[in-house]
């Protein structure tokens, strides 16, 4: 077997990164000489997947320890890089910059939450889990809380939180391949699936680790290059993290001008009127539905007879088709339209201003939501099994501690840049796009408009683009930045390769986590403890394949709500694992009954709150009218606040009401806390 300490790994990866740069330069050169964009897309897609596959095949293994924890020989710095890639998903890569663009200060909750969670990992979990030194998180729960109930609840929570997350990654892969390579979405999903399987199938954790290191290099280069060029164009200094403060000041001035523009105010008033119109219709249901259908039919007739453009007729016909048939469905449909219109008509917020300015109460609720979202994301980060598992792979406890430092350092390279992306994109759009003629918008607007990520509607009919008339999907900010800045297509291809690396690396880690939980914890530990090593690996690989195909099948259905469900994964994982793990190390008195009930109740409270705040009806279960007012105005994405609190208090109360844990368990806690001292 390879001993990583003697192999010149750093040199290999340095050569590899240099090779990647040369590849980009060659493509840039070829583009100048007429290589069509589609080929650039293909080159990036197939070269990177081929590369990951090579590493995956080279790192194939038949040893259990190699398969589950990479033989516990991954040096801290490389484990840090792999954790970075594992951690940064399609949502971080594509969505974060866009979220910051759309919500300004409010978006910083993600930056803080997704980085601050590592403090909890470093201080409260990673060293102890490493000292324990098994394979999965349910392993720890079983050892600490005496047996299978805790293990099975752990498996359930692992699968629940990870599966939603992995579907979102595969969905992201489909999106990228369909936009940049022109594959059909469904085919793109299966290409992505192949890319994921070649990494994880043969080599398990060992292969995933080394491909993730390679993927980290690509994703970080892809993230930094476009915004550095943009920073250089705007300020003359190619370090966006340092320069965007000044750019934000310019944005503030532009905002003041734009917000005060009479045309802008007028356009917003029209949106508010529309919201009022939807409200009227909801009040006059069910008559309003028939009226609306009639009105649209008349409009179509009128347009047809007046020789209007076909496009307008088609648009209204589609509107008529989308009109719901039942009165209940119409209520839901119009309520959504009403909310959207009201949101767009509302007074705009400045990028730099913390918490909306609409009065003391609104602002305080926003602050409470901000703080609780930060809390949930942090606790969730410190409880997601695919991240925690990575700290089993280092050679020692000391390396595990150092490794968290490297993880956060590599993650910060992206997270400190995301706000800069938002700032530069906002500056470009506000200074050049807003206020220009709608007839002469740049090409990227229509290119992204075609796939529905950008939409423009001239509501006040003046032929000039007002800020409120432009609607952007958050993902478009990052993907379109190269085009906004007028960079060559090779940079767009690079960004796509980076996004692909981010999605694939996270999907690898998640799939392996699910497969390990099922094969190691359920099959081997509970169902057939006498299974041979070889057979365990066969089961694990089969399950990996099954879960991967299942996830791809779900993703190819394009579930619209999946992206918002990712934020739920954090709350779920946090509520299920965080209290049981923390108390498992720091409170000897916590016992099995307490932990199992705490995990179950934490999970249930979180699910209950999410479902009741988020949805009012589940049609396929025939449930209706279950919506409720949020407690203290806290949104469903932060449901973990209640779940974590419920989990902690349940564990404490139930533990105190039942027998203290056995001597063996208490010794186990000691062994996790204290290292073996010399002379003992």
């Amino acid at each position, binding site marked *: 077997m390879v001993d990583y300490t003697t192999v010149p790994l750093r040199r290999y990866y340095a050569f590899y990164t240099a090779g990647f740069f040369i590849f980009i330069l060659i493509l840039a050169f070829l583009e100048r000489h007429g290589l069509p964009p589609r080929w650039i897309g293909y080159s990036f897609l197939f070269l990177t997947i081929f590369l990951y596959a090579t590493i995956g095949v080279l790192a194939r293994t038949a040893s259990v*320890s190699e398969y589950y924890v990479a*033989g*516990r020989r991954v040096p801290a710095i490389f484990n840090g890089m792999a954790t970075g890639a594992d951690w940064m998903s399609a949502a971080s890569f594509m969505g974060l910059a866009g979220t910051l663009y759309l919500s300004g*200060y409010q978006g*910083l*909750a993600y*930056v*803080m939450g997704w*980085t*601050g969670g*590592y*403090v*909890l990992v*470093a*201080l*409260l979990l990673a*060293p102890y889990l490493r*000292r324990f*030194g*098994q394979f999965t998180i349910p392993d720890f729960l079983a050892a600490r809380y005496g047996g299978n109930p805790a293990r099975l609840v752990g498996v359930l929570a692992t699968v629940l939180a990870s599966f939603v997350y992995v579907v979102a990654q595969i969905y992201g892969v489909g999106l990228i391949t369909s936009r940049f390579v022109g594959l059909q979405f469904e085919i793109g999903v299966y290409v992505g699936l192949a890319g994921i399987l070649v990494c994880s199938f043969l080599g398990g954790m060992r292969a995933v680790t080394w491909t993730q290191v390679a993927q980290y290099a690509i994703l970080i280069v892809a993230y930094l290059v476009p915004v550095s060029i943009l920073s250089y164009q705007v300020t003359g200094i190619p370090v966006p*993290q*340092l320069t965007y*403060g*000044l750019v*934000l*000041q310019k944005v503030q001035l532009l905002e003041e001008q734009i917000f005060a523009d009479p045309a802008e105010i007028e356009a917003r008033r029209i949106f508010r009127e529309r919201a009022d119109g939807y409200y009227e219709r909801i009040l006059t249901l069910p008559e309003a539905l028939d009226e609306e259908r009639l009105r649209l039919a008349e409009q179509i007739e009128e347009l047809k007879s007046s020789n209007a453009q076909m496009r307008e007729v088609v648009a209204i016909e589609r509107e008529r088709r989308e009109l719901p048939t039942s009165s209940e469905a119409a209520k839901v449909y119009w309520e959504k339209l009403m909310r959207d219109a009201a949101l767009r008509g509302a007074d705009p917020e400045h990028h*730099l*201003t*913390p*918490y909306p300015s609409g009065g003391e109460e609104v*602002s305080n609720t926003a*602050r409470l939501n*901000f*703080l609780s979202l*930060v*809390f949930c994301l*942090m606790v969730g980060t410190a409880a997601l099994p695919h991240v925690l598992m990575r700290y089993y792979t280092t*050679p*020692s*406890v*000391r390396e595990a*501690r*150092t490794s*968290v*430092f490297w993880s*956060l*350092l590599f993650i*910060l390279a992206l*997270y*400190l840049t995301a*706000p800069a992306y938002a700032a530069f994109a906002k500056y470009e759009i506000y200074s050049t796009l807003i206020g220009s003629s709608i007839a002469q918008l740049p090409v990227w607007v229509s290119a992204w408009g075609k796939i529905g990520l950008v939409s423009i509607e001239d509501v006040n009919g003046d032929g000039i683009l007002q800020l409120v008339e432009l609607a952007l999907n958050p993902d478009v900010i990052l993907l379109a930045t190269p085009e906004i800045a007028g960079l060559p297509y090779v940079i767009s291809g690079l960004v796509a390769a980076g996004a692909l690396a981010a999605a694939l690396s996270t999907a690898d880690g998640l799939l392996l986590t699910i497969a390990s939980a099922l094969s190691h914890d359920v099959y081997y530990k509970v169902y057939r403890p006498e299974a041979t090593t070889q057979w365990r690996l066969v089961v694990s690989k089969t399950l990996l394949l099954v879960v991967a195909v299942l996830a791809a099948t779900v993703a190819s259905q394009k579930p619209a709500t999946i992206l918002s469900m990712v934020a739920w994964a954090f709350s779920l994982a946090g509520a299920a694992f965080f209290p049981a793990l923390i108390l498992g190390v720091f409170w000897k008195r916590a016992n099995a009954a307490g932990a199992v009930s705490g995990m179950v109740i934490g999970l249930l409270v979180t699910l209950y709150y999410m479902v009741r705040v988020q949805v009012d009806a589940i049609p396929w279960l025939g449930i209706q009218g279950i919506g409720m007012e949020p407690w203290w105005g806290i949104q469903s994405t932060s449901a973990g606040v209640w779940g974590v609190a419920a989990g902690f208090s349940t564990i404490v109360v139930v533990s105190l009401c039942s027998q203290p844990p056995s001597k063996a368990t208490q010794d186990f806690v*000691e062994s996790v*806390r*204290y*290292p*073996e*001292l*010399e*002379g*003992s």
Partner: protein
Amino acid sequence: MRREHQHRNYWRRNLQMTALLLAMWFAVTFVVSFFARELAEITVMGFPLGFYMGAQGAPLVYLAIIWWYARYMNQLDRQYGVREGEADDS
């Protein structure tokens, strides 16, 4: 008994450092964000302070906390002569 004593010492020092660092973590995250509106008056590198802390200040403090903890604990391990290293494979 000596071993027990050493264990307790080691654990107490670990807990003290953990508590101190967690307090810092709490302050830069929740206290600073709570007063973000008030801190907007102060400007750093062109940013209002509240925004700067969320975007760069707090994450950099987190990195420093983790670095310091790893350093402190690894030293503590050495000081107490922890026998645990490369040979530890299961």
